């Protein structure tokens, strides 16, 4: 005999969950009471949105399913931004919400909201439980759906009477049986052979790799493929880390704030091997002018992504790891296409990322210093805006799952809580959140969480006293009319101190490395308030709707 709440907690343990990020409330009291008895770790956040982001950061850093828990109504609604963020970046998260008792469902009861209805467009699937006998099966299904195929968030809404309901005999299912859900893992042999033939015939091939490579843990295979074929690799924002930043074949990020050499290479390529990507508009710019002369091979586990934004010559539906493995098994080592590799080297030499070095405190310098200090052995999380793009451009990532950022939804306030989640996934690594002064203020209350639990997350605020990225657009496209993008100065160190956290304000280049060292040496959370050059911009930049080789702040292709 067990209550629904007890079955829930036991089911989570059976799924291998080791931490929940949550926030209590009336209708989840039965669940919280059960947690009080259990060995399951629970981290009390200061906002439900942060709980969802923390579960997401945990999932991205660990490769496991992240779990968050909130009460009904306002608690559940506060999860939505976090769930949508995970949905856009295909992150496996299970969100558990309390709901008013089934007898009150639909009555506009106190703290009732139709959270399954609200989250339908931003979840891979969701459940409203109506019977405590379904708890174990639904938890099993939810983890299976979240973590397999193209990963994504799943929500389980549990009315109070379901968590207090008694089940006489509980059976924990071992397997899942869902007729309508059969992801394809193995790529079609004939399509793979066709792709291999096309690659062999190509003169100017490029690999365009994305988040799908990271989420299927296919980085080693991808690197193997690039090396065997001597094909240069450009990654999306989500794909960063799937090839070491300093690898000779790495072209860095492509797209709106991509490197010139990546964007030139895409534009001139005659073959594009797109792996685990979705041809997002921030990547392609004007889609018709994206890789205009290339035959395209597209490998993705989600058939709906293939051909969605761009016509593809060879579609391969399957798990990227499995497909690349199959390719490697039948591919022959081909020599470098000398002229192509040479041309790319030339671009890399003549069109590097750059910034002004005049002794003023610039964000690119800070990220570079961070990169040199940490040597890739850290998890770097970012907020959204210029801080995110500078980090993507200037930090030298060595490994997959060490770069964590909100790509698809671009959620300000994501980074700090996600960094908390990442710490629990990888307590062996230092975790840095690179923030803007705008973004950090969207979940700044989590300083309470890190202070109370001595979570050693380091926050590096690139403080320009602007909503920098928006200001950049206003500067370039709205005639410098800075409509509501200026932020008054904030003494972040004082805020940190108020929460009981250490911090340091940095105003000159010379103080950057010592501050980073102090952060690293501190065994708890630490805040760095870097007062950067206020109107620094992210370059190069492809204006929205332009072709990706039409960059501003760059050079003409030579």
């Amino acid at each position, binding site marked *: 005999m067990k209550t629904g709440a007890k079955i829930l907690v036991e089911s989570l343990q059976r799924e291998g969950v080791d931490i929940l990020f949550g926030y209590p409330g009336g209708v989840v009291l039965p669940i919280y009471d059960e947690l009080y008895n259990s060995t399951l770790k629970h981290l009390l956040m200061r906002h439900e949105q942060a709980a969802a982001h923390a579960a997401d950061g945990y999932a991205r850093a660990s490769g496991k399913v992240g779990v968050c828990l909130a009460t009904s109504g306002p608690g559940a609604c506060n999860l939505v931004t976090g769930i949508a963020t995970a949905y856009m970046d295909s992150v496996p998260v299970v969100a558990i919400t309390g709901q008013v008792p089934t007898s009150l469902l639909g009555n506009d009861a106190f703290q009732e909201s139709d959270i399954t*209805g609200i989250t339908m467009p931003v979840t891979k699937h969701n459940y409203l439980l109506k019977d405590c006998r379904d708890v174990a099966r639904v938890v099993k299904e939810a983890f299976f759906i979240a973590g397999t195929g193209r990963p994504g968030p799943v929500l389980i809404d549990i009315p109070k009477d379901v968590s207090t309901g008694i089940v006489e005999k509980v059976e924990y299912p071992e397997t899942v049986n869902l007729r*309508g859900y059969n992801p394809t893992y193995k790529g079609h042999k004939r399509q793979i052979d066709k792709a291999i033939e096309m690659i062999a015939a190509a003169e100017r091939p490029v690999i365009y790799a994305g988040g799908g490579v990271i989420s299927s843990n296919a980085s080693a295979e991808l690197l193997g493929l690039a090396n065997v074929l001597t094909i240069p690799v450009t990654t999306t924002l989500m794909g960063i880390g799937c090839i070491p930043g300093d690898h000779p074949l790495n072209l860095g990020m492509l797209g709106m704030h991509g490197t010139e050499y990546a964007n030139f290479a895409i534009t001139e390529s005659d073959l594009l091997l797109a792996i685990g990507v979705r041809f997002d508009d921030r990547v392609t710019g004007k889609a018709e002018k994206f890789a205009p002369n290339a035959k395209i091979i597209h490998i993705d586990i989600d058939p709906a992504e293939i051909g969605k934004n761009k016509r593809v010559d060879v579609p391969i539906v399957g798990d990227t790891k499995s497909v690349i493995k199959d390719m490697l098994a039948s591919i022959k080592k081909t020599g470098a296409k000398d002229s192509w590799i040479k041309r790319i080297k030339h671009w890399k030499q003549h069109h590097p990322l750059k910034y002004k070095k005049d002794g003023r405190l610039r964000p690119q310098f800070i990220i570079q210093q961070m990169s040199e200090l940490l040597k890739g052995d850290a998890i770097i999380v970012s907020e959204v805006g210029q801080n995110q793009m500078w980090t993507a451009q200037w930090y030298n990532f060595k490994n997959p799952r060490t770069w964590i950022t909100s790509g698809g939804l671009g959620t300000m306030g994501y980074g700090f809580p996600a960094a908390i989640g990442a710490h629990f996934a990888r307590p062996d690594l230092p975790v840095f959140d690179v923030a803007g002064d705008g973004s950090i203020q969207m979940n700044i209350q989590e300083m309470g969480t890190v202070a109370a639990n001595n979570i050693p997350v380091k926050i590096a605020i690139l403080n320009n006293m602007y909503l920098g990225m928006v200001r950049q657009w206003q500067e370039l496209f709205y005639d410098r009319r800075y409509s509501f993008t200026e932020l008054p100065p904030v003494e972040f160190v004082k805020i940190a101190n108020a929460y009981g956290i250490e911090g340091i304000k940095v105003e000159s280049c010379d103080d950057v490395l010592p501050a980073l060292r102090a952060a690293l040496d501190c065994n708890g959370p630490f805040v760095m308030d870097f007062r950067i050059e206020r109107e620094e911009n992210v370059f190069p930049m492809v204006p929205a709707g332009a072709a990706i080789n039409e960059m501003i702040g760059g050079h003409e292709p030579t």
Partner: protein
Amino acid sequence: MKPHTLAVFVENKAGVLSRVTGLFSRRGFNIESLAVGTCEEPGTSRITIVVIGDDEKVEQVMKQLNKLIDVIKVTDLTENERVERELALIKVNAEPGAGRAEIMQIAQIFRAQIVDVGAKSLILQVTGDTGKIDALEKLLRQFGVKELVRTGRIGILRGSKTIASTK
């Protein structure tokens, strides 16, 4: 741009219809006609959706539908030999006299049934493909259509082929 008739075979669970229709609205696809009912297999339903769009858009709709966990199978009937039907109930003004006789004649030609006779109105029931119902409606307009309701289209493949056997 042409109408495609999609047969969507789903688990009969709470919320399935709103998942399906929600998917259409949020991706900007227009549903032309929608009909839902149980089918040969207990625990499942069949949704027939007519959507207008070019082939690529419709292919994308089908792929997105297929991603829904409760959707078991999606088939585009359009490329196959099929029977499509719709049912309509039409309440038309019919004062006793010549007009009423004329309406009854039209009904006969269209093999519509008169299912209710009122003092000043008739209700016609008609089944057929969309064109036939449109034509009848147009003819009846001259008498004054007071109310008209259509079920939305349903479709089934001809011969022994089923949506389970199609690719």
